[in-house]
């Protein structure tokens, strides 16, 4: 079928090589279709350039000298012999960059390279740039550092108790980096009036991100003094700010580029020593400088899941309704603050849904220890308390004789509700999530009827779709895009967003293609280059889909309005009657009237000039949070909800737990790209399962001396990583991974782009307690101390046997 002749024919199709696709008009758009990532083939074939793939002319290689002591004062550093080594171009030490930085402006306690003290084994002391990694490595051995050894604090309880050993001398509260205590309602009275109080201690261990791509950075200064830094980061904007602060350079003189990133998971969400080191060395040498971490350095950089010691009391009425939640947590922060202020708030503030808490109190203390710093790992700060709470709910369900799913339903907070901490909840698909996993797992038919050693466990959770407030106070937009169209029929989209594998580039392309009536491959996304792109705050707190997505829609819709106007004028119809989809503009009321989208672009460009629009996103100011101190931290424009059911098989002889299946239903508001959402669900569940039974970022205590007998640091195991390789840090292989069943629930939120909320972190949380609850269902003992390893299961089983024997004897 041939298109009808247009009323005016302003362009020659031949001249512009317009492809005319003779297919029926399809108004269904791109959003919600099952497509892969726009860059999938390049990622799979290795065609994508990661930072370490970049090679610049005259490039030098850098290495960092790290402290072998967990806690020591630096008396002197002598770099003369290193500088004299042939092939060495420069050495840099801490006093050349004596400006403290830190991702949170209120807790800046780090130096690019240690100035006065080292605070963990691995703390950076000096850096060398040389003609090769080999020469730089050799030069490190020629740097002589004299240390005065200080007692190392590896145990957070000891760090809390000791007043004589301070890891940061100028910290106002000893070794406490942050203490948050918030109470809502009369918790004590509510507990007293409860029919049942579940009380327990829970331990959540340290876990790290272990991205397959190690951190890498390259810096270069050009003839005008413009400093360019390429880095494997997930927060180019925060890196940009801190580079300026530490190096004393104006932001306009710095360009930050984030090449493809091979995994981050929160582990690259703040600046690190290597970025400052290469920048300073590039300035000193006038040559490009690259530094690639070793795998051990990735484990030392850490910023992973905080170990939590938790004590929880939860009150219930006979019908299963929660009356009160009272949680106390000790967070082992490691040597620096990192995001710790936020972590400490999140440990309480993110627990207030999806269940109603009539009263609530949390008391969280984060301490410094002489260990690699903890920070944000996927599900930042809320995975640990979620574990405690969801296990408490399971214990209550057992004690009250209520089905654990039913107990959760009875406490459901609902949509358009408010948590006790006054967070405004918009859409909420939690009940659908519960129903979906209940049905898919065969819960009703199978639970309680499984063979011995096999069990099912359920848990639920929530997470933020970005934080309502940036980590620095600002009225500026959190996300922005620029979009340009031209006569080629192509769309250029500039955004500061960081695609770290989660697919933010595809998300932007999907929204833009859908709005502007082109196909995914017609969108060129140029992202994460501070010279080319408007500012975006980065890939953390699951913020990009909601925030950059809204900014993208804002910009794309402005252009769509212009296009429809021009095309409508051409056809003599109202702009509303023009639909843009799949490389066509057509009349909604008569799809026989249409033109190729490229022709629409050309029409618009010829009438309006070069076509471009910006879009930006600012978080809402009303109905988000309470006005009390701390009430803003953890507040989000919209919340995702998740339910998990895990099925496990426990070998009661060996204590080994095999996770067979995990069903996860996640309310992401609207799945813009369902395949990517499923990928995020699977990745999250995998990571949660890994933490539940296997992975452990463990720093060795001496174990040989009693309290108070800690010797000075120096040679010995204090503060050493038990696992600093991918061999010893045991991430599950494909053979160890359960069947993952990812299911999408869509409860569109008016604040999300087309209703979309987050999908990258929420689906991790309740995987962990669902597994723990399944272990209880399987063998009748609880492991409240993660990870659930075979020796703990055996011990628990033997203890139960002992107790039962004692009962029989009596």
């Amino acid at each position, binding site marked *: 079928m041939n298109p009808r002749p247009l009323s005016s024919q302003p362009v020659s199709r031949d001249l512009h090589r317009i492809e005319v696709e003779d297919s029926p008009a399809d108004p269904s758009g791109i959003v919600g279709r099952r497509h892969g990532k726009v860059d999938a083939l390049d990622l799979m074939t290795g065609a994508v350039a990661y930072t370490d793939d970049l090679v610049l002319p005259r490039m030098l290689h850098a290495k960092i000298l*790290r402290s*072998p*002591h*967990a806690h020591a004062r630096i008396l002197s550093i002598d770099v003369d012999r290193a500088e004299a080594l042939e092939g060495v171009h420069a050495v840099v030490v801490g006093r050349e960059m004596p400006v403290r930085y830190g991702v949170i402006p209120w807790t800046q306690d780090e130096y690019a390279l240690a100035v006065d003290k080292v605070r963990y*084994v*691995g703390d950076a002391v000096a850096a060398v740039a040389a003609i090769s*990694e*080999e020469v730089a*490595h050799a030069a490190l051995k020629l740097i002589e550092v004299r240390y005065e050894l200080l007692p190392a604090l590896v145990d957070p309880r000891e760090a809390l108790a000791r007043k004589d050993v301070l890891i940061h001398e100028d910290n106002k509260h000893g070794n406490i980096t942050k203490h948050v205590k918030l109470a809502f309602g009369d918790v004590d009275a509510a507990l007293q009036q409860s029919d049942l109080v579940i009380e327990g201690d829970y331990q959540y261990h340290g876990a790290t991100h272990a991205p397959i791509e*190690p951190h890498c950075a390259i810096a270069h200064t050009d003839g005008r003094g413009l400093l360019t830094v390429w880095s494997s980061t997930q927060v180019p904007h925060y890196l940009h700010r801190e580079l300026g602060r530490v190096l004393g350079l104006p932001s306009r003189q710095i360009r930050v580029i984030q090449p493809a990133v091979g995994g981050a998971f929160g582990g690259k969400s703040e600046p690190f020593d290597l970025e400052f080191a290469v920048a300073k060395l590039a300035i000193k040498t006038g040559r490009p400088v690259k530094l*690639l971490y*070793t795998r*051990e350095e990735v484990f030392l950089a850490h910023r992973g899941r905080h170990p939590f010691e938790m004590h929880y009391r939860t009150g219930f009425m006979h019908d299963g309704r929660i009356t009160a939640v009272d949680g106390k947590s000790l967070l082992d922060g490691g040597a620096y603050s990192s995001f710790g202020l936020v972590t400490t708030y999140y440990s309480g503030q993110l627990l207030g849904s999806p269940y109603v808490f009539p009263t609530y109190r949390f008391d969280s203390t984060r301490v410094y220890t002489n260990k690699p710093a903890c920070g944000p790992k996927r599900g930042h700060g809320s995975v640990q308390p979620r574990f405690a709470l969801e296990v408490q709910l399971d214990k209550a369900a057992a004690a009250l004789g209520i089905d654990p799913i039913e107990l959760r339903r009875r406490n459901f907070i609902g949509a358009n509700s408010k948590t006790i901490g006054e967070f405004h909840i918009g859409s909420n698909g939690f009940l659908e999530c519960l129903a979906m996993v209940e049905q898919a797992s065969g819960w009703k038919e199978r639970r309680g009827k499984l063979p011995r050693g096999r069990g099912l466990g359920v848990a639920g959770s929530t997470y933020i779709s970005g934080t309502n407030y940036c980590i620095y106070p600002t009225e500026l937009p959190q996300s922005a895009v620029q979009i340009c169209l031209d006569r080629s029929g192509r769309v250029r989209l500039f955004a500061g967003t960081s695609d770290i594998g989660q697919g933010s580039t595809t998300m932007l392309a999907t929204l833009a293609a859908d709005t502007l009536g082109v196909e995914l491959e017609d969108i060129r996304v140029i992202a994460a280059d501070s010279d080319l792109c408007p500012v975006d705050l980065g890939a953390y707190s699951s913020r990009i889909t909601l925030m950059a997505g809204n900014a993208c829609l804002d910009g794309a819709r402005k252009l769509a309005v212009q296009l429809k106007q021009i095309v409508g004028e051409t056809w003599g119809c109202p702009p509303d009657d023009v639909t843009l989809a799949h490389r066509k503009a057509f009349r909604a009321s008569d799809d026989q009237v249409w033109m190729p989208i490229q022709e629409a672009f050309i029409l618009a460009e010829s009438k309006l000039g070069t076509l471009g629009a910006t879009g930006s996103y600012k978080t809402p100011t009303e109905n988000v949070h309470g006005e009390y101190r701390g009430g803003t931290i953890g507040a989000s424009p919209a919340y995702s909800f998740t339910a998990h059911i895990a099925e496990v098989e426990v070998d009661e*002889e*060996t*204590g080994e737990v095999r996770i067979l299946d995990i069903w996860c239903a996640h309310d992401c508001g609207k799945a813009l790209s369902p395949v990517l959402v499923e990928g995020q669900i699977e990745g999250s569940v995998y990571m949660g399962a890994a933490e539940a039974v*296997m992975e452990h970022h463990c720093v060795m205590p001496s174990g*040989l001396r009693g309290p108070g007998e800690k010797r000075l640091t*120096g*040679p*010995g*195991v204090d*503060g*050493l*990583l*038990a*696992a*600093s*390789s991918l*061999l*010893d840090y*045991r991430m*599950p*292989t*494909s*053979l*160890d991974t359960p069947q993952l069943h990812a299911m999408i629930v869509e409860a569109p939120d008016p604040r999300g782009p087309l209703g979309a909320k987050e999908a990258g972190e929420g689906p991790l949380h309740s995987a962990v307690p669902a597994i723990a609850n399944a272990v209880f269902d399987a063998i009748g003992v609880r492991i409240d101390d993660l990870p659930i390893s*075979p*020796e703990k299961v*055996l011990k628990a089983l033997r203890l139960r046997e002992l107790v039962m024997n004692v009962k029989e004897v009596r």
Partner: protein
Amino acid sequence: MLRLAPLQWQPPQNLAHALQLLAQPGARALAGGSDLLPNLKLASTRAKILVPIGDLSELSGIELADDGLRIGAACGLSELGGDADIQEHFPALAFAVGRIASPQIRNMGTIGGNLALDTRCRYINQSELWREALGGCLKSHGQECHVVPGGQGCVAALSADSVPVLIAYHAVAHLARWDGAAVVKRSIALADLYGSDGLRHVDLQPGELLTHLQLPLPQANAQVVYRKWAVRQSIDFPLVSVAVRLERAADGCLANGLVVVGALGPRPRLLPLTKLAGAAVDSALAKQVGDLAFDRCRPLPNLPYDADYRRERLRIEVQRAVVALSDL
């Protein structure tokens, strides 16, 4: 990333030439490199000269003859695990080899390399920074053993999956070296090749090379089973490693047997079951043999997992190995 220190690369023309090259001080043979190269990068072992032996025809091949099986030292682990003759006559060897590391590493690694695999310990398989912070150990640059405080000898663990099972199949190792004038050959029962010093647990003369293994064909009444426990189902070195060989009398009862336990100290532990001859091969025997292993073997805190649990687990794995061979 970690880089190799500079070294010489001296490819040989044939076996005799290789042995001459290996007679030089600081020379090391390189086959798959999956153990040697990481250790060199971590500077936990040293070499000045690398002699690549993986392509030498004298070291290749799997040959089944009437007198048994010959396996060339440079035979690849993937090739070995997939070999039909081995699967038929030495199924436990095929199984054990298939549990070494991961498919990619098995594609590189060789049987000779696995037999010569360096001993492993949580205090040595670490970076230079880590070992410096520790203050070294007997196998690194220090004087102290952190596994056995006050210990005088290195107790790093034999971690080769193939060793217990090859010993259970009565494998004989054939070795060769260059004595300055000629090639000198010798053979030794594999069980006797390993010593108790974790620094050099394979008892080789300087420059000596494993050329091939010779395995007698098992009699019809003999069966071998290998069991390994590690946290993950792939990649990991064994935390518990045991081969059990049972020989049956005509009445089906136990005639003789052997338990070979790896992943303890530097040498495999052999537990003959001679005294149990005449016992029925059933779950009672399995329990008895498991208890024997538990009593006689004491895993050390050298490998990165709870030693007490490893001991418990050893009992269970031995027991399950016997059950697998029993009449139940």
